């Protein structure tokens, strides 16, 4: 039915681990969205800060620091997941992060949503997903 290409190392991946990887990445997208909301809350306090003050703020403004710590956790989990899953599956899942951020932005910050904005985000989600197919 379809041609199967074996990439080096891919033959030893078992389905259970692959499912686990997809699940981890799905949870990661929520983590990214929450991190992004925290970073935005922190950044809002730095709207008049200079570049040096902004740099220091990353470590001293609690929501900003917490957001970057979450990003660190995400990176570790993502690298682990990449080892066991396929990029072509994981990228479309990671693109879900844009959806959560859009939803949380309108709920938490009451940001406006218009049809063009929703279409634009959907196009970017599709684009990131397609990139994943190109990488496998």
């Amino acid at each position, binding site marked *: 039915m379809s041609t199967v290409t074996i990439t080096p190392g891919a033959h030893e991946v078992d389905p259970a681990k692959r499912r686990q990887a997809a699940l981890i990445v799905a949870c990661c997208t929520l983590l990214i969205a929450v991190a992004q909301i925290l970073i935005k809350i922190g950044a809002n306090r730095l709207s008049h800060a200079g570049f040096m003050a902004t740099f220091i703020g990353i470590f001293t403004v609690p929501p900003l620091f917490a957001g970057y710590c979450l990003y660190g956790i995400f990176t570790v989990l993502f690298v682990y997941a990449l080892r066991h899953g396929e990029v072509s599956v994981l990228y479309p899942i990671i693109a879900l992060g844009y959806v959560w951020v859009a939803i949380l932005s309108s709920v938490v910050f009451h940001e406006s949503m218009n049809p063009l904005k929703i*279409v*634009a985000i959907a*196009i970017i989600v*599709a*684009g990131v997903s397609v990139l*994943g197919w190109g990488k496998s």
Partner: protein
Amino acid sequence: MTTPASSIVLVLIGSVIGSVGAIFLKSGALVLRPNLSSIVLNWRLALGIITYMLSSILFVKGMSNGELSVLFPMVSLGYICTLAWSRLFFHEVITKAKVMGISLILAGIVCLSLANK
């Protein structure tokens, strides 16, 4: 609240610089040996970390004004740059799927800035 153009520019430049950081980290990781001096004396890794920090500053500065729902998706420009650098420095192949992905992301970014009235 609408997003000022300066915020969009800061986030876009931050994404481009971040993608350069990823290239330094990768090239640093390629020559890494499992001993402390190889990690500490690795100028590529150091440059990668400095570049990442710089991109974070621009990113936070950009985020400090404007809408998250407009600014966050703009970070996807970094994916496109990473592909371009990978082609240039690691001679990775640009497949049809990659070209399609790049086009979609660019179209999305343009739409997003148009949606930001």
